[in-house]
C-alpha cells in the first residue's frame, strides 16, 4: 500500500483515529464535553479529508473504491453525522447518562457507513454494514429510561441480522456461481454463469437485493421502520434515516452498476413491483399517522420507492447517476432538517412526537417552524425546494424510459403524500392552541443555526441547483 493509497484512505483513517482517540480519552478521563469536541473535530477533519482525497481517487485494494462519487457521499454522511452530533448534545437527558460511548458509537457507525459507501467488494460491504449496524443497535438502545428504545433496538437487531444473513447467503450463492466476490468480478462472470446456472445467479441476486432492501425499508421489507424510528432517540432516528439508508443505497447502486444487474429483465420487473408497492403503501400508511416520527418512517418508505425508480432507469451513466446523487443529497438534507426540528421540539418526550404537539409552532418558534415547513414542502416536492428538483429528476427519467406504470404510481403516491405533509404544516399554523401547549423552552442557538443552515441548503438546492448539478455531473 503506497502513500497515495493512504491519502485516498484518509477519511477512513481519520475516522478510525477519532474512534481510537475517543476510546483512549474515555479510559483516561470521562468527560462528555471533551468527547463531543473530539468527535466534532474528527468529523470536521474527515470532511476536509474527503475533499483532499479527491486528488487521489483510485481503487484501494480490491475492497474499496475511492472515487469522487463515493467521497462525495462520504462527505454527505459525515455532514449528517455532524448534524446528529449537534442534535445529540442537548438531546436525551444529560444527567446521569454517560454519553462518551455514544459519541464513540456514532463515530464507529459513520466509519462503517463510509466503508460501506466506498466498498467494491462483498467483504467490505459486510464489514461496513455490520460496523454501522452494530453501533446503531447500541445507539438506539442508549437511553436508560423508557421501554421503547430497547424494544426498537432489539427488533432492529434481530431483523437486521436476519437481513444480513439473507444478504450473506445471497452472496454465497453468487460466489458459488461465479467464483467472484468483488462487484466487478461478479459482473464479469455473472453473464456466463447465468447461462450455465441461472438458478444460482438469480437466487443469489434476489437474496442480496432482499438483504439490502431491508436496510432501505422498501415494501415488503419495511415493517420495522416505524417502530424503530419511533423508539430510537430522535437524533439517532435522523442518523438512521440519513446515514444508514443513504450509505446502503449508495452501496446498492454501486453493486447494481458494477455487477451489471440492469441486464436482467426479471430483476427490473421485481424492482418495479417493489418500487410501486413502496410508493403506494408507504404513502398510504403515512396518511393518518399521528406520530410524526412514524409518519416520517412511512414517508421514507415511499421516498425509497421513488429512488428505486431511478435505480430501475439506471442503464449506464448519464442523468440517472446524477439523479441518485441529487435525490440522496436532497433527501438527506431534508430528513436532517425534519429530525433536527423534531429533536428540538419534542426532545425525548414520547408524547411530544405527536403531530398535535406541533400545533401553533409558528407562533412559538418561527425558525423551527419555518425549517419544518420547508422540509415538509421539500418532501412533498414543491418547487423551490431540493425535493422538487429531486422529483423532477425522477419524473424525467421515468418519462424518458417510458415507465408509465411507475410514473402513475409515483403521481398517485405523491398526491397522497401532499395530504399528510400538509397536515403537519397546517397543525403548526393553528392559532387556537398557543397557550395550552406552552413555550418550547429557552432559545437554543445551535439548534436554530442548524435548522437555518439546513433550510438554506434545501432552498439553495431547489432554487439554484445548477452548481450542484455541475458538481454532481463531475463525480
Amino acid at each position, binding site marked *: 500500500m503506497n502513500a497515495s493509497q493512504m491519502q485516498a484512505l484518509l477519511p477512513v483513517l481519520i475516522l478510525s483515529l477519532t474512534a481510537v482517540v475517543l476510546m483512549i480519552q474515555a479510559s483516561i478521563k470521562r468527560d462528555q464535553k471533551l468527547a463531543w469536541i473530539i468527535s466534532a473535530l474528527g468529523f470536521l477533519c474527515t470532511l476536509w479529508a474527503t475533499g483532499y482525497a479527491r486528488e487521489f481517487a483510485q481503487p484501494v485494494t480490491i475492497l474499496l473504491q475511492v472515487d469522487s462519487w463515493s467521497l462525495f457521499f462520504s462527505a454527505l454522511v459525515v455532514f449528517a453525522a455532524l448534524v446528529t452530533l449537534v442534535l445529540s448534545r442537548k438531546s436525551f437527558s444529560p444527567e446521569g447518562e454517560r454519553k462518551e460511548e455514544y459519541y464513540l458509537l456514532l463515530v464507529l457507525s459513520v466509519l462503517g457507513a463510509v466503508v460501506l459507501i466506498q466498498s467494491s467488494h462483498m467483504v467490505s460491504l459486510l464489514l461496513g454494514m455490520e460496523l454501522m449496524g452494530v453501533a446503531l443497535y447500541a445507539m438506539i438502545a442508549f437511553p436508560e429510561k423508557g421501554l421503547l428504545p430497547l424494544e426498537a433496538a432489539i427488533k432492529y437487531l434481530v431483523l437486521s441480522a436476519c437481513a444480513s444473513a439473507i444478504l450473506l447467503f445471497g452472496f454465497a450463492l453468487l460466489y458459488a456461481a461465479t467464483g467472484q466476490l468483488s462487484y466487478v468480478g461478479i459482473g464479469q462472470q455473472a453473464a456466463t454463469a447465468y447461462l450455465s446456472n441461472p438458478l444460482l445467479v438469480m437466487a443469489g441476486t434476489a437474496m442480496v437485493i432482499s438483504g439490502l432492501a431491508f436496510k432501505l425499508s422498501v415494501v415488503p421489507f419495511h415493517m420495522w421502520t416505524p417502530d424503530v424510528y419511533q423508539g430510537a432517540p430522535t437524533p439517532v432516528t435522523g442518523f438512521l434515516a440519513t446515514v444508514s439508508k443513504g450509505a446502503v443505497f449508495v452501496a446498492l447502486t454501486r453493486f447494481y452498476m458494477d455487477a451489471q444487474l440492469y441486464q436482467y429483465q426479471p430483476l427490473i420487473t421485481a424492482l418495479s413491483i417493489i418500487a410501486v408497492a413502496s410508493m403506494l403503501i408507504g404513502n398510504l400508511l403515512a396518511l393518518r399517522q399521528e406520530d410524526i416520527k412514524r409518519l416520517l418512517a412511512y414517508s421514507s418508505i415511499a421516498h425509497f420507492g421513488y429512488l428505486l425508480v431511478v435505480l430501475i432507469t439506471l442503464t449506464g451513466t448519464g442523468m440517472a447517476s446524477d439523479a441518485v446523487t441529487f435525490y440522496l443529497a436532497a433527501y438527506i438534507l431534508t430528513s436532517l432538517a425534519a429530525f433536527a426540528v423534531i429533536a428540538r421540539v419534542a426532545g425525548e418526550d414520547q408524547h411530544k412526537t405527536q403531530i398535535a404537539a406541533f400545533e401553533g409552532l409558528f*407562533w412559538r418558534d418561527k425558525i423551527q417552524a419555518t425549517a419544518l415547513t420547508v422540509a415538509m*414542502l421539500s418532501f*412533498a416536492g*414543491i*418547487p*423551490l425546494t431540493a425535493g*422538487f428538483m429531486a422529483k*423532477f429528476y425522477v*419524473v*424525467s427519467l421515468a*418519462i*424518458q424510459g417510458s415507465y408509465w406504470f411507475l*410514473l402513475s404510481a409515483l*403521481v398517485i403516491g*405523491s*398526491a397522497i403524500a*401532499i*395530504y399528510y405533509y*400538509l*397536515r403537519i*404544516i*397546517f397543525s403548526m*399554523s393553528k*392559532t387556537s392552541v398557543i397557550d395550552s401547549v406552552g413555550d418550547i423552552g429557552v432559545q437554543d442557538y445551535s439548534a436554530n443555526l442548524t435548522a437555518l443552515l439546513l433550510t438554506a441548503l434545501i432552498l439553495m438546492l431547489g432554487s439554484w*441547483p*445548477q452548481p450542484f*448539478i*455541475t458538481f454532481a*455531473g463531475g463525480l
Partner: protein
Amino acid sequence: MLMINLILILIVGGFAALISERFGQNIPRKVALAVVMLDLVYLLLSLSVMPELELLQAPQPSDPQSWLMHYSREWIPAFGIKIELAVDGLSLLMVFLTLILGAVAVSASWTDVQVRRGFFEANLLWTLAGVLGVFMAMDLFLFFLFWEVMLIPMYFMIAIWGHENRGYAAMKFFIFTQVSGLLMLVSILALVAVHQSNTGVWTFSYFDLLNTQIAEQTAFWLMLGFFIAFVVKLPGFPFHTWLPDAHTQAPTAGSVILAGVLLKTGAYGLIRFAVPLFPQASIEFAPIALWLGAAGVVYGAVLAFGQTDFKRLIAYSSVSHMGFVLLGVYAWNALALQGAVMQMVAHGFSTAALFMIAGSLQERLHTRDMREMGGLWQNMPRMGAVAMFFVVASLGLPGLGNFVAEFLILLGLFQVDRWLTVIASLGLITGAAYSLLLMQRSFQGEPDETRQLTDFGSREMLTMAVMMIALIGLGLYPQPVLDIARPVVEGLLNFSATVTGELL
C-alpha cells in the same frame, strides 16, 4: 429586467410588511398598499416610455422578439431551463388585473384581518408575486414553479385567517391544485422529452416548444395533463368542488385574490399553453371541453341558486362564469377568445367586489348565512346600492363588462355549436335567478330595525368605485382591452391554424 423587478418588488415588499409589524399593528397594511401601488406605478411608468406602436403589433407566438417585452437568461443550463419572462397583450392585461385587485385585496384586509397582520400582508404580496410570475413566465419550468409556489402563501391565508372550517378548505384547495399540477409536471417533462428526442436540445422555453412535433396519441395525453391542471384552477366542472369550500372559508382578501386573480391563471394557462402547444389535440378535444364548459355554466348556476351561504353562492356563480371562459377558449375563434379575455377581467372585478361585500357583511353580522340577513338595505343603503350594482353586473346587464364578455363568448360559440349555445344561454336565465335571490335574501325583505350597522365608509366606497368604474368602462367602451388582446388572439389563431393546417 422590468418584469423581474415587478415580481421582486412584491417579494421584498412582503418581507417588509412582515417586519414592519414590529413597529405597529397597523403598519403592515399600509406597507402592503404602498408596495402594490409602487408596483402599479412602476409598471405604468415603464409602459409609458415604450413606443405605443408595439402594442398593436401582432406578435408571432413563437417569436419572442415580436412580443411586447422579453427577458431571458440562463438558470439551470443542464436542462436548458431559463429565467425567461415575456409579456404580450394578454399577459399585460392579466398583470394589470392582478395588481389592481391586489390593491383591492389589501383594502379588503384593512379591518378584516385582526391578528398577525404582518404575516398576512406578506402572504398576500407573495401570492401576487407568484401570480405575476405565472402570467409572465415563458419557460415552462419557471411557469410551473410559480404555478405551484403561489399556492403556498394562499394556503396559509386560508389556513390561518380563514373561517370555521378553514383546515378542510385549505387542504382541499391545496390538494386539488397540487395533484393536477403534478399531472401538468408530467406533461411538461414529457413534452420536453419529446422535443429533446426530436432535436437533441433540452429546453423548457415556450417559444421552442411551440412547434414540437408530437405523435397524435401522445399529444392528446399531454394536452390532457395541461388541461386538467388548468381546468381545476379555472375551475371547470367537475373539478370545481374545491372552490366553494376555499372561497367560503378564506378571509375576504383571500377570496378576492382567489376569485379575482387565481382562477384567471387557469384560463390564462388554457389560452397560452394548453391549446397552442397541442393545437391538433385541442381541436379534437374541443367538443368535450365545450360540454364541460356548458355543464359548468348551468351546474354552477343551479347550485348557486340552492345555497344559503352568501359566499358559497358567489363561489358557485364563479363556477358558472368561468364555465363561459372555458366555452370561449375552446370555441377558439376571435369573438369567443376576446370574450374569454373580457370575461376574465370583468369577472375579476365583479366577483372580487361581491366577495368584499360578503366580507363586510360577515365583519358586521358575524354570519354568512343569508337566512339571518334580510332588509339590510335599510341599515346600509350605500352597501345595498353597491351590491345591487355588482349583482346586476354579474347577471350580465348590458353596459357592464360581464355582458360584453358573455355576449362575445356566446356569439363566438354560436358559430361553432348552436345547440350548445342554447344550453349555455340557460346560464343567463339561471344567472339572473341566483343573483336576484342573493339580493333578495340579504338586502331586501323585512329589515331588522334593531340592528345597528355601519354603512360603507369612504375607504370601502373608494375601493368599490374603482371596480364600478372599471366595469362600466369595460361595458361601454371595452375597446382598449379588446385592442390590447386582439394581436395576441389573432396571433394565436393564425398560429394554430398554420400548425393544424400543416398536420392535415
